[in-house]
């Protein structure tokens, strides 16, 4: 395990932070700019996974396992959220025959 950890540590931590930030930003932009509800969900998953990656990287670099335990929680949470979210999207499609979020503006004043 020691050699594995050392091999991973050859990549500096900053690279991981930068990578995760970029992935997170791409996720945020996807949530804000896309019209398809399923694509928005994918972007949300992207954000969650970028955080997972960062947590794991820190866990390796600090030698503390609690980061990876937290990753497990996040993965379980993401799964549950996807289940509920996709159920809602299916209901929306059944009622309005579209999943374009610009069409869903019934709550306008």
């Amino acid at each position, binding site marked *: 395990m020691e050699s594995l950890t050392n091999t991973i540590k050859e990549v500096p931590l900053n690279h991981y932070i930068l990578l995760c930030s970029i992935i997170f930003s791409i996720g945020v932009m996807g*949530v*804000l700019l896309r019209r398809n509800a399923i694509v928005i969900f994918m972007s949300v998953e992207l954000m969650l996974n970028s955080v997972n990656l960062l947590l794991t990287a820190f866990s390796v670099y600090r030698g503390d396992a609690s980061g990876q335990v937290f990753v497990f929680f996040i993965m379980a949470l993401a799964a549950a959220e996807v289940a509920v979210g996709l159920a809602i999207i299916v209901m929306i499609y059944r009622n309005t025959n579209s999943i374009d*979020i*610009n069409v*869903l*503006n019934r*709550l*306008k004043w």
Partner: protein
Amino acid sequence: MDKYIWLIPVLPLAGFIINGIGRNSLSKNTIGFVASFLVLASFGLSVAAFLQIKATGVPINVTYFTWIDVFRFTVPFSFLIDQLSSLMLLIITGIGFLIHLYSIGYMKDDEGFGKFFAYLNLFVFFMLMLVLGSNYVIMFIGWEGVGLCSYLLIGFWYSNPSYADAAKKAFIMNRIGDLGFLLALFLIQDTFGSFGFAQVFPQAGLLHAGNANVVLITILLFVGATGKSAQIPLFTWLPDAMAGPTPVSALIHAATMVTAGIYMIARSNVLFTLAPLTMHIIAIIGLATAIVAAIIALTQTDIKKVLAYSTVSQLGYMFLGLGVGAYTGAFFHLMTHAFFKGLLFLGAGSVIHGVSGEQDMRKMGGLKGKMKITFITMLIGTLAISGIPPFAGFFSKDEILAEAFKQSPTLYVIGVIGAMLTAFYMFRMLFLTFYGKFRGTHEQEHHIHESPASMTFPLIILAVLSAVGGFLNIPEVMGGGKGWLANYLAPVFAKSVELGGTPAITSPGTEWLLMGISVGAAVVAIVLAYSKYMTKGHVPVADTEERSFLANLSYNKFYVDELYDFIIRRPLDGFSDFFYNVVDKLGIDGLVNGIGDAPVEASKGFRLLQTGNVGFYIFMMVAGIVAILVYSFVRI
């Protein structure tokens, strides 16, 4: 007798309660009988009180309970009957009784019969409270109360808006005077520490003449008196008060309420003697009122208005008497005036009753054949008021004029001119009403009749009093010693005489000369009136015709009401408009409505956030998170 004093005011009060509650259920005979009998009973008790005071010379003082007792401010509820108030009691209850009797006949066709007698009884109650009070506060209760009853009775036929207006006018002008009275009360408490007569007057006697507090108190008291007794500038309510039934005019506006001011000043004579400035003011205003009212009466065509202005004028004479220090003379004139003015008003009511409600003298005439008792009694009353001896008015008016002469011949001369005017317009009234040919409609002419006994009996009694009442106070030059009234009232005015110094002495020759001049002047005026209205048969012109400038001035009451309207009512209306439209509508309503509108406008702005656009919501969420992060990093 002391034990029964409380009955004197309480009996009419009981009459008010009985007649008030039973005004629609009791029969008219019962109401009239109850009301009149209770006043008669009060009269009987007043006679007993008078006899007791006459015999013993000791005033009756009874305290019932302590009404107000706060820190240094105590007002006991107590009655005082001394020589002055005993005579007032006799006048109020005696003439009150006669007028109650008269009203039984006069008001018998009116459906408000019970209400009328209830109000009359209430008035008698309050007037008695006024004169019985042993301190200024009890007097003020009566003072206010008679103002109230005057309002109720003037506006008795309230469905007519101009009558209701007249009642309001009377009450409001009274109230203006009452403000002066109240301020005087406050000053009295402040200066003397008490309201009771027995405390105030001895203390006042120790002050020196011209004391600033006393002068101010007396001026304010006089303001109150001008309101109540219809002097300049608060006299215009009295002619308008003729809107009330004639018995009301006789009782309230001739014999009792308007004399309250005179009584109050006579009671406070010590205070007034110490304020020569106020005395001058009173004399001048009294004389001015006497002349102005007499001039107005010269051209009036409504018989009651002539008598109303005559009342204002005679009250002016009484104030003139008070102003020159002739307290006994002024009070004597008060008594004789109550007799002959009450008589004249009741007689006018009889005349109006006889010509089926007509009040315009231009439509009367020739009544003396068919209304003999009314004619003879009114003739006596007119002779009395004109100051012809041996009738009552001569003695009382002459006493005032003689005292006025002692102070200043100018006052006397103007007073005599006023007496001439009085004789002229009174005989004008007599000639126009009773002599000549009847100028009304045929209908009225058929119905001319003498009034029933319930109305003529009081006329006869009052005529007798007007004829012989003068002998109550025969002047020194005619009999030996001072008159009976002067001697009787001496204890009340003794302190004033002491403080005022000895009056000027005039020789008997001068006194006879003065008397002769005034009688002669009155006779000249009567002859002038005779020549104009009898020989030449002049009848006053109709309202639409032109009049000379002076006649116009007199007929329109010197435009005093219009002047008040311009000076006082319009600025007040302007103020009122400003406060209503600007301060209330714009300011206060704007503020309150604005507080209501502000959330509405704010919410109109906020709801624009609800675009329904999911992307917008998500964007706002992200923006918020970024803001929180920035905030937490910048702070820390």
